[in-house]
């Protein structure tokens, strides 16, 4: 596929006797929205971890456009524009929402953050507040992280990941731990913001309503293998997917 921004070829990964990825090959076109589904332990998060450098594949290769990124550190991969959010939001609990955003800005703003340039300047704060407003969390700017709801934490986690130039965004269960009535508004907001800047999105999700509503293509994982790779309706109708992933829910 000539327009692929991310290519994984024959990627394998085992943790002792547990196979997290077995010959996984994927090509994700630029600007697409993909979702990864599968039961717990199927290999979805392991795939995200391998793409973002948290885990190195045993064999196989992962390429960003023409650049090999297998074995690079998370920091190096992030610097190439591959960002991620986490199933459990990774935030700085003793900093306020605004300060968390300022940290993300300070890091993304330059390869060498300044030793003397104020991190909390009015200009930096205005930019951070603008981003928080875009994600509808500006009203919480002065609150500490433990005081926030799950939905606000998720949004802040994603907003921080998007502070830099984002070519690919990997969202690990963006709606887990979020109230049922907040799921669609959060996804509308996040996917809308990412599509607006043409970012390729790959998200891990258990809620099939979210999967069918937002993804253009679905990869179904089972025991470290991809057992289906197609449009959402096709994948959810697949007998293997119904047997191993959705349990006949669709």
């Amino acid at each position, binding site marked *: 596929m000539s327009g692929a921004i991310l290519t994984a070829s024959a990627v394998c990964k085992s943790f002792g006797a547990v196979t997290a990825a077995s010959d996984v090959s994927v090509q994700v076109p630029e600007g697409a929205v993909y979702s990864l589904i599968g039961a717990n332990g199927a290999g979805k998060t392991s795939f995200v971890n391998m793409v*973002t450098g948290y885990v190195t594949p045993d064999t196989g290769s992962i390429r960003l456009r023409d650049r090999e990124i297998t074995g690079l*550190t*998370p*920091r190096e991969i*992030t*610097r190439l524009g591959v*960002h*991620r959010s986490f199933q459990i939001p*990774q*935030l*700085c*609990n*003793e*900093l306020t929402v605004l*300060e*968390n955003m*300022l*940290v*993300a800005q*300070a*890091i*993304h*703003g*330059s390869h060498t*953050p*300044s*030793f*003397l*340039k*104020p*991190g*909390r300047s009015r200009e930096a704060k205005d930019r951070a507040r603008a981003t928080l407003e875009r994600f509808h969390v500006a009203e919480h700017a002065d609150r500490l992280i433990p005081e926030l709801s799950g939905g606000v934490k998720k949004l802040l986690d994603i907003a*921080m*990941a998007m*502070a*830099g130039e984002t070519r690919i965004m990997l969202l690990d269960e963006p709606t887990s731990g979020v109230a049922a009535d907040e799921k669609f508004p959060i996804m509308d907001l996040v996917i809308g913001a990412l599509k607006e800047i043409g970012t390729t999105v790959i998200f891990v999700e258990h809620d099939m309503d979210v999967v069918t509503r937002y993804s253009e293509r679905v990869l179904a994982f089972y025991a470290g293998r991809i057992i289906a790779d197609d449009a959402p309706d096709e994948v959810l109708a697949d007998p293997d997917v119904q047997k191993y992933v959705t349990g006949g829910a669709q």
Partner: protein
Amino acid sequence: MTPALLIGGAVAATALLLAGAVLLPDWAMFLTTMALAKGLVSLGIVGMMRGGLVSFGQGLYYCIGAYVAAMISNGLGVSDIVLVTVLAVAVTGAVGAMFGPLLATYRGIFFAMLSLALSMVLYGTLAKIPAIGGTDGLNVASPTFLGWAPEGRALQTGLYLYVAAVVVIVGTVMRLHFDSERGLITLAVRENELRVEYLGASTRNAMAWNYVFAAMLGGFGGATAALALGHVDPEFAFWTTSGEFVFVAILAGWLSVPAVFVSSIILELVRSFSNLYFPNTWQIFLGGFLLAVIFLLPDGLGSLARNTLRRLRRGTKA
């Protein structure tokens, strides 16, 4: 911190320290000079504490700075205080740059123990080299100030004013650094290293720089302490010396720069008077004082200003 507050603080500190040069009796001026010099070493530890690391081995740089001062003034005949301290800072900065990247990969007790181990290696080595005085150490010649060679009260005042000027300048620069982009990233490193790495910053790099800054401050503190005392010995690198720097850093907390120097002066005062009145049990009083601060002000003396401001704001809103 706003620029107005920063400048105001620097001006107030300068005025206070200048007043000290006139008002303080000899013994208090010496005590304050030593406290300010040691406070700089603790300020370096506070810089690392902001990133979640506590060094139990800052005696290493304090001692290197002191021995560099002793050796270049005795061996090379260099007595100018600026030159002596700049060379000491350069040497400790270089040594810090050598160990910093290695130590910055460690966290918690491992970092603390490794830093302690390095300082104790230096202690043991110095104690076993008779050429540089062994356990007796070395005497240090009195410093000169751009060719001026004062004696008595004038020498003490000159030393005091030099250290005070450096404290104001370095304190201001460190405040700017704590509030800078890097300072903010250091706070984030303490909170969540995974997040920082996934934002694209190197936690190791951030902590290595903080370590090097602390080494340079340690070198300056050691050099000026050696010049003030007129003598250095391996005890400068002993673990109890490093422990005193940590004590001051914990007492001050990570929020305030002036609190570090206030805490250092408190320690010196307590030590001096306790030694006088109950020489064998003064550490008990010191330990009790630290425990009280930890329970009542977990973020240190520096949090007093923050807590007062918060109370005032709440009062205004109500």
